[in-house]
């Protein structure tokens, strides 16, 4: 954490290498922008900036696809040259993000040339798609900051989804969400007992939870839910527009006309970021994760902290799982989480074990997801299979070094009190 804020005149060979690699990335992107986006299209792309029933309607944005391509080419080439010669120092990642956004915008204009699509829709969907990923990632952050690897997030999400469907159908949406969180906590307790008390390998314990939940929920689905559809008809949390805020052009419908799970996600990110880095509890949590022996020496109850944090992580994942049923489609089907928990893990690493980073990473994945949906509708020459793997390709590239080294914050060895 401290290395990024430290000001140093001399760069290490690894940093120099990374700067050069980045410069090459910019130049390659500039080349693609020139050949494909600027020279390969004609016509204009139309982006819808508001929906029919918005309070303040914005006019559609029409852009010449090839014109934008040339502009983006020039900017990227400039950034690449600058990166090669001098670098951007502490602003490297910010500039990289801006460059990526520009490139993406040119890409969208190219894909939508001669057609139109709703930019509000794509961003609104991106945020929705980020919800379960963010909940999973923050569950992971809470566990890993305290020294427990939680591979079982996928299972906890799935269990939350199942509980949400059944409890939501019988007791109503709110009790369903609470029970889903509790069931997630129960699984987390199992993880904690296995790894802290009995020192079972953390990866194995997590995998066991995933397989166990998948089997159990599939079993109960085929045995109970199929014959009793009334148990699998949970109420759905409708979008709730926040007064005034939702009237802001563009940002309003994207950020503030969502359902309660999205608002819960904003709150969770804010609270967990504050709690981890600004409170006594957070300091102790990180101390237990990084140097359990030292924490123990100064009188922190290491085991209690681990149990507590893993339990909270379980609540978060269980609640996030309820999104799939109560927050989205109102019914449970086998394995409906479809790997979102694992993407949450990737988002946690990508976001460097920080709640805000996790949210940003989840938004990248969510955006890639919703972009894939949109590009399938526009007639692009890119095969759908490639679009589907694009987010993972981005992860590999990013984690492999573009954003710098991602270092786990904790000592994951099982702690043995002497």
């Amino acid at each position, binding site marked *: 954490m401290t290395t990024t804020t430290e000001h140093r005149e001399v760069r290490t060979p690894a940093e120099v290498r990374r700067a050069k690699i980045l410069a090459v990335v910019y130049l390659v992107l500039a080349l693609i922008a020139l050949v494909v986006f600027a020279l390969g299209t004609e016509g204009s792309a139309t982006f819808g900036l508001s929906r029919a029933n918005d309070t303040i309607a914005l006019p559609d944005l029409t852009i010449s696809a090839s014109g934008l391509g040339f502009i983006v080419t020039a900017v990227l080439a400039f950034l690449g040259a600058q990166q090669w010669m001098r670098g951007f120092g502490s602003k490297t990642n910010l500039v990289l993000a801006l460059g990526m956004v520009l490139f993406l915008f040119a890409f969208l204009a190219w894909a939508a040339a001669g057609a139109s*699509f709703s930019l509000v829709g794509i961003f609104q969907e991106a945020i929705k798609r980020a919800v379960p990923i963010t909940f999973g990632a923050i569950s992971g952050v809470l566990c890993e900051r305290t020294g427990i690897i939680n591979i079982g997030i996928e299972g906890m999400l799935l269990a939350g989804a199942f509980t949400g469907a059944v409890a939501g159908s019988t007791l109503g949406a709110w009790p369903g969400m609470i029970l889903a969180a509790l069931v997630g906590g129960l699984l987390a307790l199992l993880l904690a007992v296995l790894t802290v008390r*009995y020192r079972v390998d953390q990866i194995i314990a997590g995998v*066991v939870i995933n397989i166990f939940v998948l089997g159990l929920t599939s079993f109960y689905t085929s*045995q109970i839910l*199929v014959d009793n559809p009334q148990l699998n008809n949970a109420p*759905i949390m409708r979008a709730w527009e926040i007064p005034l805020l939702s009237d802001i052009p563009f940002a309003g419908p994207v950020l503030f006309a969502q359902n309660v799970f999205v608002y819960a996600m904003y709150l969770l990110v804010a609270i967990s970021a504050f709690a981890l880095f600004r409170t006594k509890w957070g300091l102790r949590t990180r101390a237990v994760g990084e140097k359990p022996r030292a924490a123990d020496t100064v009188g922190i109850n290491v085991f209690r902290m681990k149990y507590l944090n893993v339990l909270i992580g379980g609540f978060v994942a269980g609640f996030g799982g309820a999104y799939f049923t109560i927050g989205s489609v109102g019914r449970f089907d*086998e394995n409906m989480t479809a790997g979102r928990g694992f993407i949450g893990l990737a988002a946690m690493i990508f976001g460097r074990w920080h709640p805000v980073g996790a949210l940003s990473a989840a938004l990248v994945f969510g955006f890639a997801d919703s972009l894939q949906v949109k590009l399938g509708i526009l007639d692009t020459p890119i095969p759908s299979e490639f679009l589907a793997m694009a987010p993972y390709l981005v992860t590999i590239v990013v984690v492999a070094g573009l954003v710098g080294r991602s270092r786990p914050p904790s000592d994951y060895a099982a702690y043995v009190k002497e």
Partner: protein
Amino acid sequence: MLSGLRKKGALLALLFAFALVAAACGDDDGTTTTAGGGDTPATTAAPQASICEVTDVGGVDDKGFNASAWAGAQRAAADFGAEAEVLESQAETDYEVNLNSFIDAGCDLIVTVGFLLGDATLAAAQSAPDTPFTIVDFAYGDETPPNLKGLVFNTDEAAFLAGYLAAGMTQTGKVGTFGGINIPPVTIFMDGFARGVAHYNSENGASIEVLGWDPDTQEGSFTNNFESLDDGRAFAQSLVDEGADIVMPVAGPVGLGSASLASELGTFSIIGVDVDGYDADPNNSGVYLTSVLKRIDNAVYAAADEAINGTFTSDLYVGSLENQGVGIAPFHDFNSQVPQELKDQLAALEAAIIDGSVSVGG
């Protein structure tokens, strides 16, 4: 330390026992369901014939093609005094395992459901040449072993009708579709749908657009899974954002997510696939304009008939409008909204497809 180890053992044993109990329940009344055997007491009578189904990952309760095949197997079992058994594949790695356990169990017909089981089924049929196999959605052509019957469907004929209907019903001038995975049994629906719309356009001088599939480039919108209902919701939302008011999801249970959005928003309707969505999805039945029916149950029933009554051949079964292997479902709640003129045109179109005067191909 020692007591800790003992406790660890006890905990693991408890987990193991729990898993065993769940598994035992499954064997009693679950994963190996017996149908049509209610009248056979547990005696040492001659063993019953058995029809064994291996599902794809969607599961037997997917309300789609796995369920439809299972319905056919159960109906055949009841009619021919056999038992029907099913093993669900949780992952693609289960295909071979499930097939082998049915081969070992001496099944009289093994039914595999879905294109994705194609390779596994061929391998199994070659390794057990005395066991009859039948596979939904796969044709092996010249390589068909004598104990393997493919069941395929000209679903594009029915989807063509659905596309024509959708084009006649849309208010916005745009209709949409998306698929699970870009494989022939999925895209055949989308092909038929898009060409049905094109046929409507050329017959009526209209210009209805199809979003999500281009039959010429064979590219379009795909969730790349058959599981995530949230994807179904997102894909439908996206099509609606672009102006579609009728959506046909061709992605098994994923489409249930689209139906859920349709009933929440009330601004668009759904065309179901495989089975009649109106019956299969009672919570959202009001959003189904119609469904493109693929009578997998009839095909499995026909194959079971052959296998049990000794007339089994490896000849391909092709379901079509003509033999009622495919069709479109009644309009149910939308019945009063579909103009009589359009209904007449659809009936004429169906007859024209059957007699060959209208081609549904590209």
